[in-house]
């Protein structure tokens, strides 16, 4: 057993689990109490992740906040949590999206207890996955975060919710059906004594052939969750069907799990496979970037537009990961963070609009800026972030990825930069149709976001602007993992 100091990471998990237990023991009808408890515990989680983020020492390379408890010695399974520069931004992202998601759902009336319980379970899995350095636990956490999704969408969703939920679950299970054999294969190939990533990633553990094989399985398995083209179609449908907070977690955090899994498991353990398959990754990523933007052009549902823009933006993450450079990894992780916050803001704003207007069809909306300037403002801010306007977070991720891509794959880099025009076109088209134009009489009586409901959106908007103005805060952290990792490669 080994603890560096106070086990912050376990504390984050425990605060989710305690929240979950307390919610389970509260009676159904105490909806207000359940919401308050959820807010308190998710707030505590956010504070803890902020503490971890801020006390992380960027000058010291390697894992920090490490906690390890051996569980099954014969198989080499241990509860091994730690944070490095790649996982910290994800932990912070999850904390922010979790807390703002809870606050966004303040108006929920249907089966409140079950909703929050499942929501807490989902987030526990996500946190666990980001922290874990044990392959076995990574797989467990992956499935813990999948299972609640199905119920959350099928019960609380909208627009073909059963279809969306089923599709999402099947896709993600297909992903885990690829991941599990790959993990077992790697475990056995390394002698069957360890699931520890830090041990397995030592050069020479796996032969190049083993790495190539396992990388492909892991890349597709996790890539499905990251919305890699052509395995992306579950994602827009799932986004649309899910209730607001679940859309936020889904697009904001869950898709990051996929990209993070590719990084943490596939790239960490199989660098030879990474080098071998990188051109394929880049090709799929660029197709995704262009394809997602083009498909978004002809959508008529607000959530579908955001869904396809996610495919496009996650393509940028994939492009960054495929460049085999420090810059590419930096940009990819930054973009994961920025995209998470941005989509959370998107869905948070859409959630409010949908609750009030009862539609998210773009042709039926219009002129909302006059009725609800704040709600529209948040959406427009998210749209501008998506376009890549400087001084908003996403810009830096895109910039760094494009520079890296341009060096490694000039053609792919140029095509990806070209897709920026299409990105601007579809985002502004939506903004124009839904929010500009004359006010419609049927919406005239609607109220704008009141202060207490505006808090989560304010937090997300502030985060976007903060990291847009001070990108170094995040880049320093990521850099402290990316540089040693790339240097350690053979």
């Amino acid at each position: 057993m080994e603890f560096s100091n106070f086990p912050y990471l376990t504390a984050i998990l425990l605060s989710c689990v305690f929240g979950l237990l307390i919610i389970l023991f509260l009676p159904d009808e105490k909806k207000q109490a359940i919401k308050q408890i959820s807010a308190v515990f998710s707030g505590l989680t956010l504070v803890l992740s902020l503490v971890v983020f801020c006390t992380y020492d960027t000058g010291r390379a390697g894992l920090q906040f490490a906690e390890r408890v051996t569980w099954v010695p014969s198989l080499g399974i241990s509860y091994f949590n730690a944070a490095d520069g790649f996982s910290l931004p994800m932990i912070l992202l999850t904390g922010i999206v979790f807390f703002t998601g809870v606050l966004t759902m303040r108006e929920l009336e249907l089966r409140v207890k079950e909703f929050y319980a499942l929501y807490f379970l989902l987030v526990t899995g996500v946190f666990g996955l980001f922290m874990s350095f044990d392959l076995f636990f990574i797989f467990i956490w992956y499935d813990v975060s999948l299972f609640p999704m199905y119920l959350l969408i099928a019960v609380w969703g909208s627009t073909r919710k059963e279809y969306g939920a089923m599709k999402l679950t099947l896709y993600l299970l297909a992903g885990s059906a690829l991941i599990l054999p790959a993990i077992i294969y790697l475990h056995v190939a390394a002698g069957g004594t360890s699931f520890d990533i830090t041990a397995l990633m030592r050069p020479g553990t796996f032969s190049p052939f083993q790495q190539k094989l396992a990388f492909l399985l892991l890349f597709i398995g996790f890539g499905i969750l990251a919305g890699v083209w052509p395995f992306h179609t579950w994602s827009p449908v799932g986004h649309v069907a899910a209730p607001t907070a679940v859309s936020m977690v889904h697009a904001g955090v869950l898709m990051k799990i996929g990209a993070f899994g590719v990084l943490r498991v596939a790239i960490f353990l199989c660098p030879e496979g990474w080098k071998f398959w990188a051109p394929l990754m880049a090709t799929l990523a660029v197709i995704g970037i262009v394809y997602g933007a083009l498909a978004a052009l002809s959508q008529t549902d607000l959530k579908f537009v955001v869904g396809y823009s996610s495919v496009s933006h996650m393509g940028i993450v994939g492009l960054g990961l495929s460049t085999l450079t420090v810059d590419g990894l930096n940009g990819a992780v930054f973009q994961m963070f920025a995209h998470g916050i941005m989509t959370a803001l998107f869905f948070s704003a859409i959630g409010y609009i949908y609750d009030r207007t009862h539609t998210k069809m773009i042709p039926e909306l219009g002129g909302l800026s006059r009725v609800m300037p704040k709600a529209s403002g948040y959406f427009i801010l998210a749209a501008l972030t998506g376009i890549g306007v400087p001084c908003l977070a996403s810009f830096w991720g895109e910039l760094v990825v494009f520079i890296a891509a341009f060096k490694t794959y000039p053609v792919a880099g140029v095509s990806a930069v070209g897709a920026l025009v299409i990105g601007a076109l579809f985002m502004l088209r939506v903004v124009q149709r839904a929010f500009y134009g004359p006010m419609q009489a049927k919406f005239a009586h609607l109220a704008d976001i009141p202060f207490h409901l505006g808090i989560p959106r304010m937090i997300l908007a502030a985060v976007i602007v903060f990291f847009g103005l001070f990108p170094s805060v995040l880049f320093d952290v990521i850099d402290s993992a990316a540089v040693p990792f790339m240097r350690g490669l053979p």
Partner: protein
Amino acid sequence: MTYPAAADLTLTAAIAATALPLAAFAVILLLTRGFPRLSAALSIAAISVALVCAGLLLVRHGHLETPLEYSTLWMAGGDIVVRVGFLIDPLSLLMLMIVAVICFLVQVYSLGYMAGDPGFARYYAFMSLFAWAMMNLTLAASLLQLYIFWELVGLSSYLLIGFWYEKFSASEAGKKAFVMTRLGDVAFFIGILLVLLNFGNLSILELNSPRAGFLPPAVVTVSALLIFGGIVGKSAQFPLLTWLPDAMEGPTPVSALLHSATMVAAGVYLLARLFPFFSMSPAALQVCLAVGAVSMLLSATMAMVSRDIKQVWAYSTISQLGLMIMGLAAGDYVAGVFHLTTHAGFKALLFLCAGVFIHACGGNDMFEIGRRGARHLKIPMICMIIAAAALSGVPPLSGFFSKELILAALAGRPSPIWLAAGLLGAFLTTYYTFRLIFIILFPRGEAQAKDAHADGHNSEAGYRVMAAPLIVLAAVTGVLGFGGHALGRFLLQGFPGPVPGAGHPTWLPFAALGATAAAVGLAWFEFGRRGADQVGFVERVEPLRELFRRRWYIDDAYRWLLDHVLYRVFSAFCAKNDQKVIDGAVDGLGGSMAAAGRILAVLHTGSVQFRLLVVSVVLILLGLYYFVYPLN
């Protein structure tokens, strides 16, 4: 940085000038949106301080042999380092002054123009955002910083064009402006990446230094042309020129500030900023020259048939920006920058005057404005005539001197075609300018009794607030031309690029004046004299008029590409592919699984006899198997 104390004051002033408008933007947006007057006061206070700082910098560094550069780290990760800072040299000081002056005057003018608008506070917030972005762009020390603020300027332009978002045409124009300039910016960005990859450095000073001469010529040419793509977008040059006339949907002060004097001039500024770099590639300069000439002539023809007063000035802006690019591309740095300076003054003035007329007469149609008695509004009418004369190059107004310099530079080119284009451009410019002036001055048809002044919503106080900036700008237009020599000396201090030899053919001024006089005469004959039917010579030729009015079908071409190629082919393909091919395959897989299950389910009838039968058959088969192949 030889004088630390002096440097400190310079730095403080630069920071104040660039940061205060941002602070005003943030405060207005977050706190004072409900208080329009306070918001306006904040914004104007910020821009006033910025103006004082710009003036201070200009006075302090009137003699500046070596450029000052301050920079600090913004972002660093891996191999990528983004620095943010200030490059203080004669060009940036001059541009900073222009931006500050025009911003200040336009914001004061807007007090009258935008009075009573429900979005008054938002308007001033966006104006401050623009001022911040533009000033940072001006002082940017590296190409990447310039690009960042270039994009932010584009953003504020989008927000301001679509300011009256309830109007469909306004939001459409904002979107069009953003997307079309984005098209150019993509080229610009790739150009920056190319420079970064080959040169390893994006500092503007480094790029302009002889060190960049070691780059392979092909790289210089290609990256210069890509960067020029950004200029084409931002300065609305051919073929990305059609967004600018549409941008006139924004409030008129916005058109005056962004879409004539400052933002669109940022493209020309960038060309001047990188002039030594561009000069390394004669091929790239040749392309710039051609694009400038084509844009100048095309947009001048469009201006000849327009009835909308703001559109005429918009076309004229494109045309004049083309002329500036020609001047720079012909190798005369001072001529291009001088024309940028004078143009900023008189074009802002033209728009602000047009704004008064539009405000008073309630419409953009110049015939209507004439009939409503716009000529009785003395101050704007006189100011507009002064500015129009400057635009046409009538001596001794500012435009005459700067245009003369550009024509001289064109005369220095080996091929006479550029000078001919320049003279033709000058002729057309004068013609459409005086066409507009005469139409407003001498209205035909029944003059409406309504006096523009008494037209209602234009209060006396508002009128006076709007008139003050006009007078200032008119005075500037009157005297600025004589500062040409001083300006040239100031600009060329420590200038690393090539300087053209002095002197031009003695007949040139006469030729230019002749063209101007002929154009005024023609305009007088067709629009001014008693009994003229106010139909221009191009308007008599049906196909020609149609061609010019439809903007040479450039817009239609874009529309067609967008509708038929992008939406109907590519976008529809992707969306359909998702539904039919990918989802179809996946759903098909699911469906076939279910079908397979259904077939297998037939076996599960639930009858005991059937199960026993199956069990015994299987056992018999197994027994046979081991009987035939013993387990040795």
